[in-house]
C-alpha cells in the first residue's frame, strides 16, 4: 500500500489516481469528524467531498514535512462550518441526526450511558462537540488541538474546560428528566 508521502508526491506530479489512496484512507475518519460538526449524513458527505476536492486543488502548496490529515482537517472544518452556516440546525432527537457515539465494550449499562452521552453531545454547540470529539475520542494532545483549530493553547484549555462542564450539565439535566 502506498504511503501518504508517496501518494502526495504522485498527486503533485499530476496523477489523480494516487489521490484515491488518500481519499480511501481518510474518508471514514473525515466522515466521523464532519458528522460531529454537522449532525447530518448527507451534509457531512457533501462537506467531506468538497474538502477532498479543495485539498486536491491545494496540494501543490502542501509542504512535504507535514502530515496530510491535520492539514486536510483545517480544510474540512472550514467546509463544515460554511455548510452549517447555510443550513438550519437539526433538532435534537431528529431522525436525521445520526448516532455519533459507540461504547468501548458491549455491556448493557454502557449502551444506556452511550444514549445519554449522545443526547448530551447534541446539546453542545458544534465547536464544543468538535473539541470533545478531537480530545476524547481521537485523543489529541492540546498542542495538536491548537494547531488543528488554529487557536492558542490557552484558548484550547479554556474551551475544553467549559465544553466538559457543559457536557456534564447536559448529562445531569437528561438524567433528571428521566427520573
Amino acid at each position, binding site marked *: 500500500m502506498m504511503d501518504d508521502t508517496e501518494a502526495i508526491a504522485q498527486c503533485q506530479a499530476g496523477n489523480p489516481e494516487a489521490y484515491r489512496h488518500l481519499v480511501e484512507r481518510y474518508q471514514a475518519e473525515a466522515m466521523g469528524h464532519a458528522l460531529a460538526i454537522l449532525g447530518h449524513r448527507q451534509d457531512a458527505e457533501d462537506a467531506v467531498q468538497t474538502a477532498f476536492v479543495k485539498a486536491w486543488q491545494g496540494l501543490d502548496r502542501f509542504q512535504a514535512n507535514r502530515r496530510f490529515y491535520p492539514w486536510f482537517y483545517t480544510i474540512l472544518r472550514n467546509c463544515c462550518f460554511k455548510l452549517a452556516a447555510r443550513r438550519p440546525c437539526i433538532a435534537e432527537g431528529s431522525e436525521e441526526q445520526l448516532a455519533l457515539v459507540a461504547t468501548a465494550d458491549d455491556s448493557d449499562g454502557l449502551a444506556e450511558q452511550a444514549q445519554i452521552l449522545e443526547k448530551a453531545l447534541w446539546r453542545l454547540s458544534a465547536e464544543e462537540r468538535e473539541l470533545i470529539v478531537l480530545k476524547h*475520542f481521537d485523543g489529541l494532545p492540546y498542542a495538536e488541538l491548537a494547531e488543528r483549530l488554529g487557536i492558542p493553547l490557552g484558548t484550547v484549555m479554556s474551551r475544553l474546560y467549559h465544553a466538559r462542564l457543559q457536557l456534564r450539565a447536559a448529562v445531569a439535566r437528561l438524567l433528571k428528566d428521566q427520573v
Partner: protein
Amino acid sequence: MNPICEQVRLSAMAHADGESETASLGLAEMESHVAGCAECRSALAEMEVATQLLADHRLRPQTVQLAARVHEGIAAAQSCREARRFSGLFVALLTILLAERAITLRSDAPTRWASRGAVCLLVAGWFICQRQNPFSLNEHLEFSRKITL
C-alpha cells in the same frame, strides 16, 4: 469565577489530562487552593465525571465510499478551471482588438470613444471587484450537475 480559581481549574485539568507541562500551577500549589475552595472542588468533581463518561465511549466508525464522487468533483473543478483559462484568453484578445479599434477611431470622434471606453472600464471593473469572470461557466451549477450524474 475569579482568575485564581480559573487558573487552578485549568491547571488541574491539564494535570489530569497528562499535560502537566501546559499547566501554569504545580500540583502542590493547586492542591492547597482546592483544599480551601469548595467551588473549585465541586467544579473539578463535575469535570472528572464528564471525563470518565467520555473515557468509556468512542466515536462510532463510519462506512462511506466517496472516492468516485471526489474523482468526479475534481474532474468538474478542472473543467471549470480550463473554461476560465480560455475565457481569460478570449477577454484579453477582445480587449486588444477593442483598444486597437478605439485608437484608430479616436481622432474621428474623441468624446464618443472616451464615453464608450469609460462604460467598458466600469463593466470590467465591476466583474474584477466581484471576482467573477463573465465568460466562465457557473462553477456551482456545473459542479452540482456533475455530482448528480
